[in-house]
């Protein structure tokens, strides 16, 4: 039930902001501070999400095979690998480290 509620809220919220952009008069959101904040908000969220999904286990912070996978993804990104290869590297290295007992 909770999952359905989350899906409904996300769908409604994400659609509302898309529509708002098309409907509100130009200039309403164009203030420099608002634009700057809107650009930085995804940076903060993505950084926190990356860290939590790599090092989080429930409410604990742990170091496991996912960290090696993420390091591989980071190296792939530095080498300018295509997106699917970046994800593939993370998955393969994580699986490999787990298979070795990490």
């Amino acid at each position, binding site marked *: 039930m*909770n*999952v*359905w509620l*989350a*899906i409904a*809220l*996300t*769908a409604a*919220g*994400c*659609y509302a*902001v*898309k*529509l*708002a*952009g*098309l*409907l*509100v008069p*130009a200039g309403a*959101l164009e203030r420099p501070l608002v634009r700057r*904040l*809107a*650009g*930085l*908000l*995804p*940076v*903060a*969220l*993505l*950084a*926190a*999400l*990356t*860290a*939590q*999904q*790599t090092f*989080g286990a*429930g409410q*604990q912070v742990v170091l496991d*095979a*996912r960290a090696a996978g*993420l390091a591989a*993804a980071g190296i792939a990104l530095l080498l300018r690998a*295509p*997106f*699917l290869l*970046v*994800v593939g*590297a*993370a*998955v*393969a*290295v*994580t*699986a*490999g480290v*787990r298979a070795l007992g990490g």
Partner: protein
Amino acid sequence: MTRQDRPGPGDTPGGTGAGGAAEPAGRPRAQVVRDALGVGVAVGLSGFAFGVTAAGSGVSALQACLLSLLVFTGASQFALVGALAAGGNPFTAAAGAFFLGTRNAFYGLRLSQLLALPRAVRPLAAHWVIDETAAVALAQPDRRSARLGFTVTGLTLYVLWNLTTLLGVLGAEAIGDTAAWGLDAAGPAVFLALLAPMLRTGTERAVAVLAVVLGLGLLPVLPAGLPVLVAALAAPAILWLKGRRK
């Protein structure tokens, strides 16, 4: 990332799109369609990664497919299933996804002037207002090409993203234990791939570092889902600090 590497619908803030340099007005339709298809196909295929991640997060096939159909903005979808998997309550999980989606409003602002859509069409077109459609449309030199680019990119991406989501979920369910295959690392890798091109200046990097510290530091202290929302405050905090230093 180049445009071939787009991770998901709505995931390339600041991308300048497929068109490259502006060309003289009246750009050939075939050229616009080719650009739009290139972006739509490349990004549309990565719905597979979302389907796999969603299945690994304990979301059902129907729920994963509905997310791709109804939310249709990649980063928000990944964030939501990740938060649910971590045991977040539906409100905090949806709030994180919502904040990631707010940037689409800014694309809408640009597009509404460029496309000049009739009022009746706007509620339909709104669903396709994401990074990639905005990037392709904004790169066109004239309104007719922009409308064509927006429509072709949106349609291709929407159809493929939803098809590959379904395939990803079914594939993951067939595999069974997704963690044994390392598939739980797909989600954070996607976020990292989205984040990397955003870290252009010191300000972005400072925000990212503070968000990581808050996100991990508060994990043991606050209920699931809340640390991410508090970490989002890194953005206004760094802006405020920068403002004070001037």
